């Protein structure tokens, strides 16, 4: 075990980033075109980085897994994006956004990174408005804000329920402008399957061309991974189908440490599971909790329809337990409380694994048209999926895996433990600690891509002497051969079980033992079951079709193979972290009232895992966390 250095600049927290920008080395504009930068993933983080670096004059290659960058997973974000603009004059500031994010993350994030995030948040909004992102506006013509996810100020900017889509179209268009200008080369339908490290530095990647099956080598002076999160390790999550840990995991196997894999976020308001055919879960924006009231029947086994249950037989449990935050209690807290109700046997619906989110009172108070103006599209979506009309009957919701705070470890430069490998957006671990606040992921992805990487990458390139390498280099050949062998192996097993069935079973194990509640016995069980499942996968998986043409089953097989390794590390990390914090709830570590109990004496660190050989236990490294500006305190929402 070693101690990791986050390379946090010296000085006061307010001055660190400014000072960094002054101290950093610059690449002269004329020289930028001599540098090749690869950006993997074209969500908010990747598209914004590719666009900005292209504008600066770097030679950029963007790797897009989809048919178009506009389809990247960020497109699905609904609720909004935070920024400390204080346009509402309600007391917001960089300082407050910083404070809220550190506290919301349950004191497991790096202060310096969070402060920088809060600082650049204001520039993001300006940039997006200039691009023509049609944010919601008031009748004055000025930008509208709402309060979101338990924040006590209105700092969330939004574009109806499609904020992610609109922000992504902004970043995507900016990138397409650089494609037209030939500053960005866009490679479609490519999946990164390996990182190539030469002389200890990231020098390129190996991709599979999903259309031809060709294994391609791409050389670079720096590589940015912006490949999103790993919620799909749970099989059912709100993430898009192509979201996977593969890119991050392959980099991990090449030496990039993986930090805090057990920090996963379970979002409280999703449409519950309907049956065995279910392929993914749908989020209902948490903005609904501004007007909806969450409840279950007071009595176990109350089989009456919701409208038949009178007021005195309802338990509005969030309002009861958290009088000051009520239905707006933070995500981790709300999710856990829903699970408790279901565990008590007070869940609703035909499966008993759901709670009500009821708009009856809001409709009484404000009228149906006001509710429809606020949530019309969400109500419609709910109706489409469930066949129920939420104007007439309460929604049924249940928590679902949604976001992963863990990810590749990065220092203040957003650089991983492999020099030249940068990690942005949800794929890194940096800013949200053990729990992410609503509307902060979009902010972080765009902060990384527009305003941080363009500086830190320049600093890296200007300080490094990089030898020229070609794709004929041994390291590229060795890596490409390895990937080809893996593909051949998967195709040749010809077993009896589909990829899907392995993924489902892994999901069942991780959700059961490493989901909303975790304990030693369960985690140990998962740690014996997952390796067995992995073993079976490599002996009994059935991948149909050919490897030299489009083959979605083969793509999935590669991704599930990685989840089968990463899921194990997630449980390992959850087992070692005996405290509860944020989204990581160890049942052994709770207060008498069932709230998460942190252990700052023993666990105030980032856990960063180093890959060893296959089937060897990974080695834990620590980065100690220091809280000099926000005092370590118990997070309370009572």
């Amino acid at each position, binding site marked *: 075990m070693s101690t990791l250095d986050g390379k946090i600049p010296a000085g006061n927290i307010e001055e660190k980033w400014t000072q960094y920008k002054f101290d950093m080395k610059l690449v002269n504009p004329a020289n930028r075109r001599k540098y090749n930068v690869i950006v993997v993933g074209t969500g908010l983080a990747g598209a914004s980085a590719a*666009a*900005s670096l292209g504008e600066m004059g770097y030679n950029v290659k963007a790797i897009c897994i*989809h*048919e*178009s*960058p*506009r*389809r*990247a*997973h960020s*497109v*699905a974000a609904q609720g909004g994006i935070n920024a400390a603009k204080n346009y509402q004059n309600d007391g917001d500031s960089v300082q407050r956004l910083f404070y809220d994010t550190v506290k919301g993350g349950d004191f497991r994030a790096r202060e310096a990174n969070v402060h920088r995030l809060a600082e650049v948040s204001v*520039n993001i*909004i300006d*940039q*997006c*408005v*200039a*691009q*023509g992102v*049609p*944010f*919601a*506006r008031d009748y004055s*013509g000025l*930008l509208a804000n709402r309060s979101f996810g338990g924040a006590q100020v209105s700092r969330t900017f939004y*574009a109806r329920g*499609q904020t992610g*889509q*609109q922000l992504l179209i902004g970043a995507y*268009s*900016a990138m*397409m*402008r650089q*494609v*037209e200008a030939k500053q960005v080369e866009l490679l*479609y339908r490519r999946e990164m399957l390996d990182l190539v490290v030469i002389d200890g530095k990231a020098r390129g990647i190996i991709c599979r061309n999903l259309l031809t099956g060709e294994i391609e080598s791409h050389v670079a002076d720096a590589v940015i991974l912006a490949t999103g999160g790993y919620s799909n390790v749970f099989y059912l999550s709100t993430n*898009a*189908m*192509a979201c996977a840990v593969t890119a991050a995991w392959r980099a991990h196997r090449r030496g990039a440490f993986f930090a805090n894999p057990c920090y996963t976020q379970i979002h409280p308001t999703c449409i519950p*599971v*309907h049956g065995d*055919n*279910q*392929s993914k879960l749908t989020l209902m924006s948490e903005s609904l909790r501004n007007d909806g009231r969450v409840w279950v029947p007071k009595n176990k086994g109350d089989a009456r329809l919701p409208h038949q249950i009178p007021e005195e037989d309802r338990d509005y449990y969030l309002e009861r337990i958290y009088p000051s935050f009520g239905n707006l209690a933070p995500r981790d807290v709300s999710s856990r409380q829903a699970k408790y109700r279901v565990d008590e046997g007070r869940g609703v619906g*035909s499966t008993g694994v759901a709670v009500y989110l009821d708009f009856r009172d809001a409709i009484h108070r404000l009228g149906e048209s006001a509710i429809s103006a606020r949530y019309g599209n969400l109500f419609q*979506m709910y109706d*489409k*999926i*469930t*066949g*129920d009309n939420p104007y007439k009957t309460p929604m049924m919701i249940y928590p679902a895996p949604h976001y992963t705070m863990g990810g590749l470890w990065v220092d203040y430069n957003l650089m991983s433990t492999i020099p030249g490998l940068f990690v942005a957006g949800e794929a890194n671990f940096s800013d949200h600690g053990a729990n992410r606040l609503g509307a902060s992921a979009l902010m972080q992805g765009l902060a990384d891509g527009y*305003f941080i990487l363009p500086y830190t990458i320049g600093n890296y390139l200007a300080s490094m002497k990089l030898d020229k390498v070609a794709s004929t280099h041994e390291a590229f050949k060795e890596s490409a051969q390895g990937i080809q062998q893996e593909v051949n192996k998967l195709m040749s097993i010809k077993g009896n079980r*589909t990829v*899907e069935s392995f993924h489902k079973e892994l999901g069942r194990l991780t959700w059961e033992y490493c989901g909303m509640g975790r304990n030693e016995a369960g985690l140990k069980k998962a740690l014996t079951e997952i390796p067995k499942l992995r073993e079976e996968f490599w002996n009994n998986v059935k991948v*149909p*079709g050919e490897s030299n*043409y*489009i083959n979605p*089953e083969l793509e999935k097989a590669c991704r599930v193979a990685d989840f089968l390794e990463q899921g194990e590390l997630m449980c390992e990390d959850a087992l070692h972290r005996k405290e509860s914090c944020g989204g990581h709830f160890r049942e052994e570590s709770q207060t008498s009232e069932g709230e998460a109990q942190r252990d700052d004496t023993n666990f105030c660190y980032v856990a960063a895992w180093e890959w060893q050989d296959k089937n060897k236990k990974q080695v834990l490294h620590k980065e100690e966390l220091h809280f000099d500006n926000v005092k370590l305190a118990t997070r309370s929402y009572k």
Partner: protein
Amino acid sequence: MASTKAKILNLVLKVWRQSGPKSEGKFVEYPAKGISTDASFLEMLDAVNEHIIADGGDPIVFDHDCREGICGSCGFMIDGQAHGPLRSTTVCQLHMRHFNDGDKIVLEPWRAQSFPIIKDLMVDRTALDRVVSSGGYVSVNTGCAQDGNSIPIRKRDADEAFEAATCIGCGACVASCKNASAMLFTGAKVSHLALLPQGQIEREERVLNMVAQMDKEGFGACSNTGACSASCPKDIDLTTIARLNREFVKATVNKHNTDQKLGDG
């Protein structure tokens, strides 16, 4: 949620199978048994594919990702209708409760010259990206923006721009048009930016370049039948096409006049 109303359906799918852009395709029938009315259309296809794989066959290929109606990946013809029978709904958001036990459902890919078939129900819509890269943006580099609130925009205009900007680039409009025209898609982008102050500077070049690219990609002309808007999952309005036409005429005339002036001088 397994609603109390959930039923089980047995269906037959008649699916267009084509192994590559140049190969010949044909319809093949598959049973879809034991499908819950709560399942989505794509979940039904997943179930059929699991059976095909178990039987040693080659699963049906289709594009999809978000399964929430927002990424624009999914889309094919269901019984001759783009995205199927339900209005304002992508295939991934269409649920099986809109079908009846015993139905035979015909699935075909988008058919348009500018969208070559990759395999089965999957087509290549990168032509739409090239239309965007020809001018579908405001040219503003990172870091040079003024304060967001220094550009007030009338709420009505902002809302209308937003409506146009909700296009997901699925290509249903092209697929349902007998001329395979991309006017609704391009009209949506041109409208989004023409309605906003940020879009004014490049307003004329934008429309000229995007229309030129659209033609270059081989998309057809518009003959005002409105099939595009009727099949659009995001209800992009036909007024966007009218605006596109107006913007195009205005920009062409202005360009002509400027060219002449420059020629004179």
